[in-house]
């Protein structure tokens, strides 16, 4: 069923791209409108709703106190989870996370982790015994393509929105948030390009994703370094295409980063 739709759409999308246009009239390097709203969840320590076009993701940060990993005794723990909820798409199913969900969560996680976005050592409370656990949960509400970028943006926005709760006798009083923020060191941003036929476009909508040959996601630090990459799809990229995508993505990452509601101290 899906394949049939895809065939017709594929023709249309490719023809349009050959003519130098996209089916929704955007430029090849143009993102859809982006909206980021933070502070949308009172039970979460930090939260954000991100919309890229019609794609909508809610990100929530919850904090807990727990034990560090044995090989990182003075480091807080970060864990990222995504839920492709069945309300977001007719193709998402209930049940345990599938490979797409797991890949999404892991790539978002790598962007955050490898950029050293959070200074995890500052989240140590008692070395080897007690550290902050940071849970980032990504709740996909409406799926119109490019979940990677929306989720990364949501995760970072929720992190910068986070305020630590009060702690008494080692127990968290969730109802009382302090003014203390997470120790944010960097603001990684991911940009995703889709290769469709011979063309490569940023921020694919769902229709484009359904016909794309391959996908390349690159995460950038504030400085412009590369901190994570993930190719997806059965198609291939040439060496040249990969280097091009990196350069085009860097420009777009600067645009995206402006949407993160972060004020330097």
């Amino acid at each position, binding site marked *: 069923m899906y394949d049939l739709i895809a065939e017709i759409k594929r023709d249309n999308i490719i023809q349009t791209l050959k003519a130098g246009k996209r089916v929704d009239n955007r430029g090849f390097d143009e993102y859809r409108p982006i909206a980021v709203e933070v502070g949308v969840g009172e*039970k979460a320590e930090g939260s954000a709703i991100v919309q890229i076009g019609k794609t909508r993701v*809610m990100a929530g940060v919850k904090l*807990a106190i727990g034990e560090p990993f044995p090989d990182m005794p003075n480091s807080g723990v970060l864990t990222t989870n995504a839920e492709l909820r069945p309300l*977001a798409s007719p193709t998402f199913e*209930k049940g*345990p996370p599938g490979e797409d969900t797991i890949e999404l969560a892991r790539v978002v996680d790598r962007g955050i982790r490898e950029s050293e976005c959070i200074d995890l050592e500052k989240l140590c409370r008692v070395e080897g015994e007690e550290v902050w656990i940071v849970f980032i949960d990504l*709740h996909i*509400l*409406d799926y119109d393509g490019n979940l990677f970028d929306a989720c990364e943006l949501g995760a970072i926005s929720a992190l910068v929105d986070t305020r630590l709760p009060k702690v008494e006798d080692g127990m968290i009083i*969730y109802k009382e948030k302090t003014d203390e923020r997470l120790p944010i060191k960097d603001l990684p941003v991911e940009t995703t390009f889709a290769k469709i036929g011979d063309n490569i476009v940023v921020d694919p909508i769902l229709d484009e994703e359904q016909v794309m040959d391959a996908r390349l996601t690159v995460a950038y630090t504030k400085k412009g370094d590369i901190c994570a990459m993930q190719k997806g799809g059965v198609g291939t990229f040439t060496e040249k295409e990969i280097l091009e995508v990196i350069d085009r993505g860097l420009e777009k990452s600067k645009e995206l980063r402006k949407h993160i509601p972060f004020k330097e101290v």
Partner: protein
Amino acid sequence: MKVGEPERLIIDGKRLDGRAFDELRPIKIEAGVLKRADGSAYLEWGGNKVMAACYGPREVHPRHLARPDSAILRCIYNMAAFSVSDRKRPGPDRRSVEISKVTREALEHVVFTHLFPRTAIDVFIEILQANAGTRCSGITAASVALADAGIPMADLVPACAAGKVGGEIVLDLNDVEDNYGEADLPVAITPKKGEVTLLQMDGNFTREEFEKAFKLAIKGCKKVHKIQKEALRKKYGGT
């Protein structure tokens, strides 16, 4: 006495959040907010934030679940991990399985399932923020999402709870009242005929208290119904 329990829940004849005994928390419903879903609704009700979506009628997988003479209605109620103070582990738990079941039973009566044999109508309820009364919020929102999807229904289904707090019968318990109050009674009705499609209770009521609370809950449902209709009017016009 539980940790964090306030000394009194009713002070000078008023509730801690200042509401009168028969007063609802503020409710906001918006219909048709999602692109992919066939119908959807976003609801804020006090501190609750709920997204509901409807897909269908559509093919049933696996097929042996299909009914030859009607659609099957399926509901999934789910809480986001960050919707509660102690992070909820993703995935269904016993509570959400039960709520999914009573939600389906609350809604199915009004849906003309016999018009769509061999299909499924799926209702998904996501609790993005929880503050007591999530099942009533979910049913209320889901009902609007079903209407937004154009599913033929005999009526909308509004839901609302009443309860006992500090010895008083009150409408629409909030978080603190639910945790430390004496009883909670969520109800859903079909406003046209006044039939009860959801009824659960836990706590302690005398026979008289129950009747008072029950009638208060039904009154609450009727107020909620107006807000549901308003939301649909706002999107689709009409009276």
